[in-house]
């Protein structure tokens, strides 16, 4: 079987670059071309390893020429649906997300070589109002369809992908719907939100559930989809759930309840006074409580995330400096108990003497090790060019494939 030729979009970001790097290492993949409108920064280049890079905006028909020239058979659209802040960034993101996806799909539809298409989507499509069931399956539809924002974009994008699937029934289309991705490396609005210290604003009177996926699980799952044969929509989330306020406490921060109407004013004031910027829209969007049913992920796709929601969050928190250290809290408890003349209770979760060992944190903190290992080799990505491509890649490949 001839190996795959994979095109990965959005390689300036963590998911795209890490995925491109992993695929480039895989024996079942011949060639990986990462595309993005901007040049990847050094860390992303390192993560891309042997993958080639083509500077192309997916909103530009040039992307079709890249697909044609390389004979791409698998397209991974990993860059869609980031959640930007601010109105200008918002319209920019809509352009990138929706129009970029449309252009990419148009190119894929025209290309005879494309066999597989994987489009990253988000769990935002489920809405998450109080009228929605607590747990969403792939068949669930939001009772209140959001009319703006990234959720709307994601719904539109999925609509175009469905249309593509109808016009090209010979192409396998997989759409993973990710809950928020978190981890020590990714930088998203959510990680910035939890990095505020010592207070993190929440909407007063609300505390919704949320679910997270670890960045390594996200990359591993997309790789699994590229190499597997699953077609359709699949929910992706780490097991379990936590609430926003709980997560803020776990991050060693203190939730600051602000009434919803005052959020905009407080947000602007905080920015003016340089007390830390937050977006009222983002804080409000966190009131949508949503948990995904991941039985399809485990049973049909055959993928089990290594990190639970809590483990993924704790892994992310490991790089933060806690404003309120749990050890300080524990020490205060012990001291107070001594003053009152009572013995402090043992540390840990309350109800589980049996499973207090809990989720052993998977030992996959190898990201740093890899970086140091490859740093010398891939300071600069191998460039993909449409002209004279055969030569370049023929020359580059033996050097690149050290297997």
């Amino acid at each position, binding site marked *: 079987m001839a190996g795959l030729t994979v095109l990965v979009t959005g390689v300036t970001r963590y998911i795209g670059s890490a995925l491109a790097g992993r695929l480039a290492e895989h024996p079942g993949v011949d060639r990986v071309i990462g595309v993005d409108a901007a040049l990847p920064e050094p860390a992303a280049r390192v993560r891309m390893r042997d993958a080639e890079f083509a500077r192309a905006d997916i909103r530009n028909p040039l992307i079709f020429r890249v697909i044609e020239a390389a004979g791409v058979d698998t397209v991974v659209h990993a860059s869609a649906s980031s959640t930007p802040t601010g109105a200008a960034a918002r319209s920019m993101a809509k352009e990138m997300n929706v129009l970029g996806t449309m252009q990419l799909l148009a190119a894929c539809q025209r290309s005879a070589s494309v066999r597989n298409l994987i489009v990253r989507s988000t769990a935002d499509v489920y809405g998450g109002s*109080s*009228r*929605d*069931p*607590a*747990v969403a*399956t792939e068949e*669930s539809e939001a009772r209140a369809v959001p009319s703006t924002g990234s959720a709307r974009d994601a719904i539109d994008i999925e609509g175009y992908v469905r249309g593509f699937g109808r016009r090209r029934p010979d192409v396998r289309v997989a759409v993973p719907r990710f809950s928020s991705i978190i981890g020590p490396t990714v930088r998203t609005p959510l990680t910035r939100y939890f990095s505020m210290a010592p207070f993190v604003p929440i*909407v*007063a*009177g*609300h*505390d*919704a*559930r949320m679910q997270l996926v670890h960045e390594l699980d996200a990359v591993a799952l997309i790789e699994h989809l590229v190499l597997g044969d699953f077609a359709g929509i699949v929910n992706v989330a780490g097991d*379990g*759930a*936590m*609430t926003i306020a*709980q*997560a*803020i*406490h*776990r*991050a*060693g921060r203190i939730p600051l309840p602000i009434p919803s109407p005052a959020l905009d004013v407080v947000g602007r004031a905080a920015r003016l006074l340089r007390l830390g910027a937050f977006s009222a829209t983002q804080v409000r969007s966190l009131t949508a*409580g949503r*948990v995904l*049913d991941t039985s399809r992920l485990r049973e049909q796709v055959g993928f089990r995330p290594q990190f639970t929601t*809590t483990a993924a969050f704790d892994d992310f928190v490991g790089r933060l400096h806690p404003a*309120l250290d*749990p050890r300080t*809290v*524990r020490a*205060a*408890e012990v001291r*107070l*108990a001594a003053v*009152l*003349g*009572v*013995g*402090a*209770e043992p540390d*840990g*979760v*309350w*109800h*589980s003497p049996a499973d207090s060992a809990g989720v052993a944190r998977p030992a996959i903190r190898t990201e740093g090790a890899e970086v140091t290992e490859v740093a010398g080799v891939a300071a600069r990505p191998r460039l993909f060019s449409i002209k004279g491509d055969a030569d370049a890649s023929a020359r580059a490949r033996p050097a690149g494939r050290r297997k």
Partner: protein
Amino acid sequence: MNGGSETGPKPLPDVGPAADNGSVQQTEAGWKRGLAGSLAFLRRRLTGEYEVDDFGYDADFTEHVLVPPLRLLYEKWFRVDALSIENIPDTGGALLVANHSGTVAVDALMAALAVHDHHPAHRPLRMLGADLVFDTPVLGPLARRAGNTLACNEDAERLLTSGEVVSVFPEGFKGVGKPFSQRYKLQRFGRGGFVSAAVRTRVPIIPCAIVGAEEIYPMIANIKPLARAFGLPYFPVTPTFPLLGPLGAIPLPSKWLIEFGEPIPTDHLPEGAAEDPMVVFNLADRVRETIQQSLYRLLLRRGHPFLG
């Protein structure tokens, strides 16, 4: 978090009829343990060291913050008697169907506490509530923490399949918001969605009759324009509310009886019975009739609403 000082660990030591000396020592030990428990609870809140399930149920919070004041209300104020509670199975899914009354849904909380405290397996009762509850700030997250979720078939079936005891009040707002003159008359039972959920997941239906809730806030009138203005299903006028202002929020101390009826099995029904409206309506009628008969019987047994 309110009630920080009264949040002891749940199994309060039974202050048995021991010798005076020993009993004093026991209460002191219990008091100390309670204090240590409260401190540990506060620490867990501050560090986020607790778990919530997919529906947002937070056992730690429920146990230490919600249950203690409800237990006081249950034991001292309403003097609730839980009857035939062994009809709820120790394990596996079961659907509790109860009558709904009392202007404010205190009856749901008391039923949950009855199962939590007096059932041998101390099972948490997962209630299904109206979307209005989950829309309301403060109340919504609190309801989720207590293990409740939206009354819809998806959530009900998911909970039943995972082996939880789920309670449902098919009368909904028609039941809680009915005038005092119609007390203990069951209202219409919705569209029977609860029956199809039980049939589809093959769990028994346990009819549950609650007597006593009707008298806590006797609703003598309903100011509809105000209800509309506040977006509420009704705006109650009781003998004490709004006349006495906040004092009107104190429920009248009626005597309560909660009876859990014989389980009605659904696992003998053929495949696809949930899709047969005749089966569903018949079963719903049977449940409704059982609860109504139990209500009449319990009313006779209780006698005086406040002294009984």
